């Protein structure tokens, strides 16, 4: 038996390829929302829009329907440079043996107040 749950967990196979795209697809934008003054913009999600103005308007309608933000950034997804996830070890230095970068490393001063 196949199909039917809202979440698509139904045993059917992936859809077959559809007809070719006639129009250039709208570019993808990443949306960042500042939820209130004093806080950073935080990534909320992404959307498609033909230009920056429309991206902002779409972002407002899509990500701030309930006062979730006081400011929005939209950034073309293609402008984001990502570190390579498979190069984890080489790129991010190992924290091993570097406990001294944390306050908890310094135990001799224990009992001294406001330190």
């Amino acid at each position, binding site marked *: 038996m196949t199909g039917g749950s809202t979440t698509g*967990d139904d045993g059917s196979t992936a859809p077959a390829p559809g007809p070719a795209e006639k129009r250039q697809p709208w570019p993808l934008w990443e949306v960042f929302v500042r939820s209130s003054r004093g806080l950073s913009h935080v990534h909320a999600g992404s959307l498609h829009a033909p230009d920056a103005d*429309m991206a902002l308007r779409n972002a407002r309608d899509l990500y701030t329907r309930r006062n979730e933000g006081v400011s929005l950034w939209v950034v073309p997804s293609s402008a984001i440079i990502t570190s390579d996830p498979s190069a984890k070890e080489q790129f991010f230095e190992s924290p091993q043996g570097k406990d001294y970068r944390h306050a908890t490393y310094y135990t001799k001063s224990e009992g001294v107040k406001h330190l």
Partner: protein
Amino acid sequence: MAAPAATQYGGPDIDAAGQQLFDELIAEDSRIEPRDWMPEAYRKSLTRQISQHAHSEIIGMQPEANWITRAPSLKRKAILMAKVQDEAGHGLYLYSAAETLGTPRDKMTEDLIAGKARYSSIFNYPVLTWADIGAIGWLVDGAAICNQVPLCRASYGPYGRAMVRICKEESFHQRQGFEILLELANGTQAQRDMAQDAINRWYAPSLMMFGPPDDDSPNSKQSMAWNIKRFSNDELRSRFVGMIAEQVKALGLTLPDPDVRFNEDTGKWEHGPLDWEEFKEVLAGRGPCNAQRMERRREAHEDGAWVREAAAAYADKQARRAAPATEAA
């Protein structure tokens, strides 16, 4: 295609290392992110599940949007519009999540329009009265919430994050539906009858929203092994029955199922038999409203073509004006 060198992306070494990291991440119940290596079957299965979920949100706008003009007060119209707008948002969050797996949104839209993609069978039932809008909010959104809350912890990061956003919005959907029924239940006899009739018709289809019984749900096991799905269809259905069996009492109405009971031995809620033949029929496209929903979706897409084209042309023109020098020669 020639066999790729071992060091190339997707080569045997990368695949082995990728599979190992993937297995480790799943074993420690961590998350997989878009740029991580993942098994092709995981990618395919998620693409199917998330896009189908997105299509359900989009098609799901239709039965309710049809009632906006007939909603009994300005307040109810505003509420219903807000709900339908939320469902559009849910569809878009989910298309975005699915896109991170490599399938463009336009392609998913084309598949839906071409009738190649599925959506939840629940939206192929007719919405006959205002009480149905109440029953949909309470039962259909209620079942969706039961399904979706565990999906907030799905192993694929973008899916889980979309679900968190969706779940925050869903509880209003369920409550507004329950309130519609509550008001009818406290109204005239005719209104009470209308509310009961809506519950009678939406009860079984909403239970079937959880998908086929466990012994007839071939993908469930793999999906649970990948930490996408956290509970089986029958488990979630049983929980849902328990919740609505209590909630219906607040309405002073009943569920159309004399077999609903809490089994002390198993600690689970039970319900009467469901008509899985009907479920198959609706899925196969022979439900009461399949053709209507697909036709409406196609029309909306075609009617909107000039808007998409105009917006793209305008964006092109603005871009050319902004950079005249680079266009020269």
